[in-house]
Every structure is written in C-alpha cells, then in structure tokens.
C-alpha cells in the first residue's frame, strides 16, 4: 500500500469530468486537479488503466508521483482543507 499524488490537465470538459469521477473512487481531492490516493499495487494498476482509457494523450497530460512515508507524514494543508484524512486508519461518524 502506498500513497500516490496524481495530477492532470485535461483539454476537454467531458473527459475532465470522467477523469475526476474516476479519481474520486480512488482517493481524496487535494486541489482542483490534484488527488491524493492510498492504494494497493493492484488498485493503482487498475486506476492507471482506467485513466488511460479516458484521456487523449495528444491533448491531455497526467502525472503519477509515488510518495515515501516521510513525504506523506510531512504533508501540510493550509486553508480550506476538505474531506477525510487518508493517513488515518479509522473514521468515526
């Protein structure tokens, strides 16, 4: 299981929406086009395949950055942070 930072620039609004929807299933939106995901090896493969099916590599771009444990611990969010903290192991409602 590892943390991944995934970002995108998508030229077409329909593809943009589909990419965002797919990423919401896998992780947490940090910024408008940057997601933080905590994924097992199989899940990141699945996600990568899913994204490649949607995007048009002529016009769009994606990045995948695998974060080490130190990097993820050093994450600091300032301002209007939203949603759950992926680093937790439990959530209580």
């Amino acid at each position, binding site marked *: 299981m590892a943390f991944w930072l995934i970002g995108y620039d998508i030229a077409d609004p329909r593809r943009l929406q589909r990419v965002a929807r797919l990423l919401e*299933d896998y992780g947490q939106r940090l910024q408008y086009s940057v997601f933080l995901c*905590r994924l097992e090896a*199989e*899940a990141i493969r699945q996600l990568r395949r899913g994204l490649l099916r949607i995007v048009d590599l002529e016009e769009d771009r994606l990045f995948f950055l695998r974060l080490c*444990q130190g990097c993820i611990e050093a994450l600091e969010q300032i301002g209007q942070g939203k949603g759950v903290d992926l680093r937790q*192991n439990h*959530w209580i*409602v």
Partner: protein
Amino acid sequence: MAWVYEFAYCLRRGYYAWVEGPGEPVALSSGEGTWMAADGWCGPVQFIRDGHGSPVPVIRLAHVAESDTAERPEHLMLAALARLIEAETGQSVARGIVQYGPTGRQEVVTLDERLRAAWQRLDAEIRAVIHEGRLPAPRADQRCPACPRLEVCNPSGAAETAAQLNVLPPVRQARTLYVDEIGAVVRRDGRQLVVTVSRNGTRRELLRLPALLVDQVVLVGPVQITSQALRLLLRQNVDIVYLSTEGRFEGRLATEFHPHVALRLAQYEAARDPQRALPLARQFVRGKLQNMARLLRHYAQDYRNSTLEATAAAIESDLQHLSELKSPDAVRGLEGAATRRYFSVFNEMLRPEAHEPIDWPVFPGRNRRPPTDPVNATLGYLYALLLGNLVTACAVAGLDPYVGYLHTPAYGRPSLALDLMEEFRAPIADRLTLHLFNRGKLRPRHFEERSGGVYLNEEGRAVVLAAWQEWRQQVSRHPVLGLEMSQMRHFEAQARLLARTLQEPGAEYTPFVA
C-alpha cells in the same frame, strides 16, 4: 480449482492468495462448466469432446504468461483438471486446450506422464503448504515481475527496501469506519461510501470516502446500510459488524474468504503450544495484578489506610514471583491467591459515610451465583457488561473469542475474552462499582431479593447502565500506541495488540494498566 493456477505459478503466490483471499481471477473463465470434485479439489470444469468422444479440458487465460524453463502453470492446471475429469467420469483424458486471451490463439497440450507426475508433486507441495501454514520461499525468478503479489512478497528481499515498500504487513490492515450516529444511513455513490443523516426532512452528508480505503465497517445501534453499499463492501472483502448500542456483538457479515484466516490459525497454534500460551497467560495475570495493586494504592492514599497499602504491597510481591512460574496451573493459582487478597480488603475501599445513618453497604467478600449483597450484585452485572464488550473486541479484531490461554477452553466459555478481561476488571468495573456506591448513586432501593440472591432491580440497572455508558467513553492514553482513546477503544486496541503478538514472532503482549 482456481487455486491451482496461483500455486502452480509460485507456491508463495498461492499461499498469499489462500491467506488473503484470491486476487483478480487469472485463469479459468467464469463459473461455467460442470461441477466436479475429487481428492479434495473441486470446481467448475469446462471441457469439449474430441473426435473419439473423450473429454478435453479447456482453460482460458487473460494474458499470455512469459515462457520459462519450469512447468507452465496453465499446463499443470490442465493436468489437475484431467485428473478431476478422470476421477469424476471414468473416461481417460489425453489432451487439453489453453486459449489465450483476446487473441483467441489455442494451444493443444498433450497430457503426458511427465506433466502428470509434475502435477502430483505440486499437489503434495500445496497440501504441505496449507497443512503447515508457513510462508514458502519466493521463486525470485523471471516470473516475479508479472506476479500480482509482487509488492507483498518482495522477492528481492533486501531488509531495508522491505521496510520501505512494505509499510503495512501482508495481512490486511483493519482500517475501520465506525458509524455510531442514530439514524445515519450508509450509502453508495459510485465506489465511494457516503454516510448521511436526515434531520428535519433534509439529508446531510457526514462523511464521504472511497470504499477502497476501508477494511471493516462497524455499525452501532439504529444505523442503516443500503444493499448497494453492502454489496460493494462484500465485493471488496470488507466485513460489516453490527453492535447494539450497549456494545453487545450482534453479528458480522463477511465474505467467505476472510483475510484473517492466518490470524486465527496463529491463535489456535499458540493455544496448543505451552511455550507460547504460558507467557500470554502470565501477561494477562500481570495486567490484572498490577491494576489491582494500583487501585488499592489509590484508595490507600485517599483514605490514609494502612491495610490497603499493605495488601497492595503483598500483591506487588506476588507479581515478582510471576515470571518464575512454569505451568499454567501455577499462574492460575497465583492469580486466585492475589484476587482473594484483593477482595479481602475491598470493603475498606467502600465509604459507608455516604449512606449514613444506615450502615450500608457491607461487602462480605466476593461471591456470585447468586450474589448475596448489593456490592457483589453490582460487580457481577458490570463484569457481564465488560465481558460482552471484550467478546466484541475479539471478534472485531478477527480473533476467536472462545479459544484462550489463561482460561482453559470449555464448551460455551469465551476464554479469550475472559483472558483479555482480567486486566480491565479492577480499573473499569471495580472502580465504577466503588464510584457508584461511594457517591451515593446506588441506594438500598435499587436492589431486590429474588431467587435466593440480591440483584439490581430495574431502576438500579438503569443507574448502572447509564454510568457504564459514560464510563466507557472516558478517554485515556494507550500505553503502547500512545493515542488518546476511549475505554471502549482500549478493549479493541488490546485485542488488536494481542492479534499482532500472535502473528509476529518475538512480539510481546503488553497489558492495559491504568
């Protein structure tokens, strides 16, 4: 039969699949085919008939495996299928067919003696692995890069890369979503879980997170979950635990292949091995004695009472002998003696001043079934509540509550929950009992005599339950994990700590001390 492919690929991959639940299906198409069973293997078998009417098994592979020198897993699987067909139908099988993925390329495989012998060897190896429950060595060859378990297995094996890559152990973590809000509904939106609650006709979203992140969902009390959400969770091998508001364990919904198989096997193995059971039993008793001594010292200082002080010291000296004891019976004997010491002075910790002018309550010593006095009745009731919570904690942590180490297993006795309960008796139940009587919250009118004993009546139970609910939510620091958590969470944390102890050789269980 799908296991055969995983094991044939690599014994280690097969082991992971067996322990953690199968990954995505690799070989074998769907559940189509004729169900067959022989030699302990079973599964749907697809076959066609050749020109002579003899059956030819067919398997479909999603992707083409790299060719290497060793026996190909799909060939071994055909041999296994052939054996199954022969045992089931009595007809001999000479050939098998492998169809490769979307290209539809076919390979006809002759099932010769060499291949059949290879399957016989593999069959024996698989049985040995499952029987021993030990992780086989990795292949560390050209098959590894394509293996879906690569990340978990880490065949290159350098210790520091393992520490970096494998931050989490191979058995799945218990990332838990607790829903403890009256009227909350757990829903599904795509592959996300959404918890909502309706107030005054408007639905408010409390939490939204990808279902991938969760290994367990605990639903407490009147909480709903939609079928769609339930099925999403089951498909992802997440188990769902139902607790009543009182903390009683009501049931659990899980997929057939539960990832905690390895944990339960470790638990049973340790129960059969005196070398491992004895240290655990000692730790449970150590926790209990430390906590009894602490409670006595606390009240000794409060009341400046030398009897309590002396008993605390006596129990502490009992603790010194604990590590010398060589048998579970001796450990139980020491525990019994220390407990008798403790209860012989329990009366000193009660404060009858709170109930003047009557001389109440009087504690005649610990007794039960039936309890003869209000203090014993209250202790018994609280121990029952506590036990319920610990049975839950065991089940939630994936342990079998009925197989313990200090308490010998017996029909219907939740031994492990009783083991874990020892360390909590004094700081949770006994302290609360003292609190209830000394603060005058329990009065003589809260008790009734029936069937030869003294019991809490309805009003009394309500007082105790309300206090218990509040008590359980009190927050304190966990000695090992260093986190602030409620008493409730402490029960579960101890169960999980025990689970870790059972799975990691050399790890020691640290009891809860407060």
